[in-house]
């Protein structure tokens, strides 16, 4: 695992350093312009999630996976290292981006809100969901998987709009509020700690499902 981390850091060090220095500035500034607490995690989480895929895309571009997978490493190890590396990168981006968001002069949301448990938890949730959906697509389609994801999002958006105009917004809102409502109910009944635990467990389960699906796809991949 460490060997694979090391490999990515050495082979992509310029990229990691460049992105690590510049990208949080961009996210920090962009995030500071957003004043809606519901919009911030939805948008920023996607920007954090892009980072590992751009890094993996470099290896894809050079077709270097054939070489890496010829080394003494199994596909499970390789994918596990990618998941862990991705989470490390995304969390670092999240921390740096949020910090800058809070300190940029004229930020629309106060630091207390940006670092509030609700914001942190919802950001983590969106990161986990985006990443969990993107990874199997990336494994299956390479960089084109990102486009597939965006197209699926667009199509879903269009379908929801059609659905909304024919059935009404009530059902959609109910569907979207299903998880937050369940968390709120847990919090009301048992307190904040079990609610946080429930959310994190759900995210872990979702990520595990994504890993299992990605691994199944990866094992079928041929070079």
């Amino acid at each position: 695992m460490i060997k694979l981390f090391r490999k990515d850091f050495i082979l992509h060090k310029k990229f990691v350093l460049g992105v690590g220095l510049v990208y949080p500035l961009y996210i920090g500034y962009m995030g500071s312009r957003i004043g809606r607490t519901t919009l911030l995690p939805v948008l920023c989480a996607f920007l954090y999630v892009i980072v590992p895929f751009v890094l993996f895309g470099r290896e894809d571009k050079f077709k270097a996976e054939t070489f890496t997978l010829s080394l003494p490493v199994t596909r499970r190890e390789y994918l596990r290292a990618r998941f862990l590396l991705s989470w490390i990168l995304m969390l670092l981006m999240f921390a740096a981006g949020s910090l800058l968001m809070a300190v940029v002069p004229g930020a629309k949301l106060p630091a207390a809100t940006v670092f509030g448990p609700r914001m942190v938890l919802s950001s983590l949730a969106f990161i986990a969901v985006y990443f969990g959906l993107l990874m199997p697509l990336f494994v299956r389609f390479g960089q084109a998987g990102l486009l597939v994801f965006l197209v699926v999002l667009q199509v879903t958006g269009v379908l929801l709009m059609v659905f909304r105009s024919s059935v009404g917004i009530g059902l959609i809102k109910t569907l979207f509020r299903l998880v937050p409502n369940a968390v709120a109910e847990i919090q009301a009944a048992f307190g904040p700690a079990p609610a946080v635990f429930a959310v994190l467990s759900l995210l872990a389960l979702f990520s595990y499902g994504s890993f299992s699906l990605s691994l199944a796809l990866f094992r079928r991949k041929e070079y």
Partner: protein
Amino acid sequence: MAAALEISGLRKSYKGFALKDVSFAVPEGSIMGLVGPNGAGKTTIVKLILNLVRRQAGAIKVFGLDNLADEKAVKNRIGFVHETPALVEDVPLRDIASVVAPFYPCWNPALFQAMLREFELPAGKKFKALSHGMKMKFSLALALSHDADLLILDEPTSGLDPVFRRELLDRLAGVIQDGRKAVLFSTHVTSDLERTADYVTLLLDGEVVLSAPRDDIRDKWAVVKGGPELLDPVRCPLFRAVRESPYGVEALTGDIPASRAAFPSAVFDRASIEDIMVFLHSGASHD
């Protein structure tokens, strides 16, 4: 003699191509040349050994270990060179080596440095700045620097100048001197095999048509030259392939004594591996 690599009943199909029950073994202390025209399935076999593509049937054992069940242990003992070396391009060679080294417990940094010097590869040069031949040399340096027991080289001589090519073949001969190691290298340059290989496996359209010690091939196979009598339907089953030209008839036999007895007036020339490949690939078979 124990087998360093044993392949049995290997199958893999793609649209328009299939490996059909490929079986052969590379004994320890030997070099096997995997030869065949482009598209015969050589690279697919190499990729199957390294688990880069999924087999549909059959078994691959490396020093007795299954290449899938014991993937890491197997790959630890393999040094590989791919047909087209592809690595992250914008990093220096020394960085690539520092990435590869920790994967192999037996990595020998002094040997690697010596090989870089010998192959005239500057460690600070970026991979993308190398020519195809230099990339091949770098891949060879990586493959030879961790004391691999089995070297699997896919078209290792492509893009190499004749001098280095000869040196490489000599080096491969040196690798197997301890009697424990083995080399499998695929090529369509048959002169490489004549010089180095102890065993030859010939692939045509995904099938093994010949797998034998090179000396056996030299002793048993010949190109028979003569007139129309070679087309005699009673006697010509001795031939594996027959070719007619305006100047006469040429046939390939794998049984020189029987063919000599049947056609005493014909001319017998020892068949090169290239002759065998060309005849079996394009000649009309009488099997």
